């Protein structure tokens, strides 16, 4: 996975960071350390006025702290400036603040619709039941700040047709909000064509060929005439990630399958 002198997880965190605008509010789900690394990198570089809303602790934070696994609550509870319970948060504040949030789809289709309910088989007898949709069917139905990330780009995730649509993408029937603006994977960056709503290559990560991307993607991507290479991390960005934000490399857990993740956790 090593490209030049950085890992895909590091490049992904850097790309996530670059999507953050100073002064905005970002939301952090559960089990998303890669996204946390990206947000914290933004906070420490170009977005010092970033505000975090966290599912863990149900708190609003304005200060950064290193990512810890067992001690994740330190970040979100101890430094929380304000606590908002889930009921109030889901019903009142998500629709109003519309924080920017990165979601990780179990499946994603060419229009940025996505699925976190089940894969394969039927709903009643799935091949694999997924944990569930969290707030995805909510914010994707009305929100304007939906972003996606896929740590392991593959045909099982990038599918022509979803088994279930729990996250609404670029759909002509949409009444409010907007489909995902952006998707980052370990192979490249993507956006969505304004007219058709179709997923389009924005850049390929260093060392990734278009052919490899095509093989790993279960549908036709829109391909621009010229495909740029994703800008790699700066030395300072890498230093911040490695030394200050995530010294225990917790972000990399999101890149691994079950067995390797367990090895890492042990």
């Amino acid at each position, binding site marked *: 996975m090593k490209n030049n002198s950085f890992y895909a997880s590091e490049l992904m965190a850097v790309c996530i960071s670059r999507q953050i605008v100073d002064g905005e509010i970002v939301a952090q789900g559960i089990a998303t350390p890669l996204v946390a690394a990206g947000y914290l990198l933004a906070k420490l570089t170009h977005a010092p006025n970033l505000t975090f809303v966290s599912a863990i602790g149900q708190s609003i934070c304005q200060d950064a702290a290193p990512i810890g696994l067992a001690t994740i609550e330190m970040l979100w509870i101890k430094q929380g400036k304000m606590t908002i319970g889930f009921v109030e948060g889901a019903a009142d504040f998500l629709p109003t603040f519309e924080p920017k949030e990165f979601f990780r789809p179990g499946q994603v289709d060419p229009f940025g619709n996505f699925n976190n309910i*089940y894969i394969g088989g039927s709903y009643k007898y799935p091949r694999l039941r997924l944990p569930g949709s969290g707030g995805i069917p909510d914010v994707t139905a009305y929100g304007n700040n939906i972003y996606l990330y896929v740590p392991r780009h593959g045909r099982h995730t990038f599918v022509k047709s979803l088994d279930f649509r729990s996250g609404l993408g670029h759909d002509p029937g949409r*009444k409010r909000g907007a489909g995902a603006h952006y998707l980052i994977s370990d192979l490249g960056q993507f956006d969505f064509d304004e007219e058709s709503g179709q997923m389009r290559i924005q850049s390929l990560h260093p060392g990734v060929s278009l052919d490899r991307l095509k093989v790993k993607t279960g549908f036709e991507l829109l391909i621009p005439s010229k495909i740029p290479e994703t800008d790699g991390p700066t030395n300072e960005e890498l230093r911040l990630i490695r030394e200050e934000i995530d010294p225990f490399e917790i972000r990399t857990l999101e890149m691994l399958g079950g067995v390797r993740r*367990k090895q890492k956790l042990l």
Partner: protein
Amino acid sequence: MIDKTGTLFDAAHLVKDDDVIGLGGLTIYRRPVGLVKALIQQEEPPQNLTLLAFTAGIGADMLVGAGLVNKVRTCYFGLEIFGLAPNFTAAANKGKLDIIEESEASLACGIRAQLAGVGFIPSLAWQGTDMFSVRPDVKLIEDPYSGEQLTAFPAISCDVAVIHVLKADRSGNCVLGGNPTIDLELAIIATTVIITAEEVVDKIEGKIDIIGDNIDIIIRLPGGAHPTSCYPLYPIDGQEILRYITYCKRGQLNEYLEGLSLTPVSLSNSLG
């Protein structure tokens, strides 16, 4: 002050067949794992429970694995970065669970409807998604002002709530210590409320997170959230969660629970 303290044994008996059981806390944070184990390890554990949780984690997974639960109502059932919840995933894949698919908004609105005494709360959520196909009971409603089609999330009730807290007094006032989740609302909508507490005191100085009026029984149970965290007393015990997953994948939940029964808190003592 009315003293509501009791034993794990008393508390476990409050959960009846067919109850909706609500679990406090969040996935792997401040879950009432100790009470869940006590429930399972009774001679005749309750059957056909409906599990209600904002997010369901390891305690919920034990209940499913032990066969106490046939219906699940949550928006997330997993172990976060530790992976899928093994018993839930296996049971769901086999079609053995009746899943009432929820999202954050449907749970939030359903709880609010219950609190307000109305049948529903309208929301923008779910519009355009496939959620309605698996929740045919969720109705649409026309906004009488704008004519817009809205989702009418139905009220959610709860028979018995089980919440682990940092500190409680004998009348049931509680301090949660962070991660309030939906615990206050759960304690209010539930008919019966069971509190397990790291510490039981005569009087709580300062602020509380849950008012004692709705609480039925309080059990002192230090370590009662382990292997989930109880901030700020103890963090998530990741190694223990992995050990749990390993046992469950081998189909050895019972062996896992038996091996635990004297840790982190002596069940036999508490039952006395």
